[in-house]
């Protein structure tokens, strides 16, 4: 007897690329639409369809879209920077954070000096007591494992515009 199940007329991007039938339970279909072929192509190139499928199966369904978007972002950055991938981006952001911490500490010290000057009515106290608590207020995310990457990544990736930090899809 002929099956009543209709043949899929709209394969998802994954099944199109993998040249297979896109069934109703295709794990990729909700997240790799047929009008976004590039998204699956880059994820497949970096991670492989099989690994992506395993990752998606491991996460709750309500978190799969975020998972796919983060995988796509990571894959795109890796293809743009095959050596450091997202690690390069993280190193740059950490460096920027350290610079900001420094600037903030200096600004707060300067503010404290002005405040002391205002309250004491003295033009220049010459005080060098700096408020270093600003550093503790903004601890830089990520542990010591990144230290080895920071300097090298910064030197080799001065071209920071390659990291388009505005394009994380899930923001």
């Amino acid at each position, binding site marked *: 007897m002929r099956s009543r199940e209709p043949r899929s007329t709209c394969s998802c991007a994954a099944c199109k690329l993998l040249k297979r039938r896109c069934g109703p339970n295709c794990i990729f279909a909700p997240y790799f639409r047929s009008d976004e072929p590039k998204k699956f192509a880059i994820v497949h190139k970096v991670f*492989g369809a099989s690994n992506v499928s395993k990752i998606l199966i491991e996460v709750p369904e309500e978190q799969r879209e975020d998972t796919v978007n983060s995988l796509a*972002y990571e894959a795109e950055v890796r293809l743009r920077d095959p050596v450091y991938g*997202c690690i390069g981006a993280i190193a740059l952001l950490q460096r920027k*954070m350290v610079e900001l911490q420094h600037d903030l500490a200096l600004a707060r010290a300067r503010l404290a000096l002005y405040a002391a000057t205002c309250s004491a009515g003295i033009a220049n106290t010459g005080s060098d007591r700096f408020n270093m608590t600003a550093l503790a207020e903004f601890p830089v995310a990520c542990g010591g494992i990144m230290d080895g990457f920071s300097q090298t990544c910064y030197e080799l990736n001065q071209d920071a515009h390659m990291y388009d930090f505005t394009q994380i899809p899930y923001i």
Partner: protein
Amino acid sequence: MGSGRCAACRYLRRKCTDDCILSPYFPSNNPQRFVSVHRIYGASNVSKLLQRLPTHLRAEAADSLYYEAQCRLEDRVYGCVGLIFLLQQQIHAAESQLIKTQAEIAVMKSQVQHP
């Protein structure tokens, strides 16, 4: 001969040749390193990626792949992108604080100069 295999070839149960591309970066004394990378990227993808790079950059690439794989294994949903997001938030907060502090300095400065 089996004892001379790198972690990758040992895991994949294959002969480790002299020109094995994975061997320098996945030594046999750290099997977990290869397992992590293989689980997320797959040995074939890692090999292809390393092959496309000049030799002097492959060690850094292998290290960064390992780090990203570890992040993804710890956080299946966001991987290391979660850290990027966190850093962006921290930077935004610190920049806001800096602007606020600089504005306060400007006010204080004018008070000092024009009491």
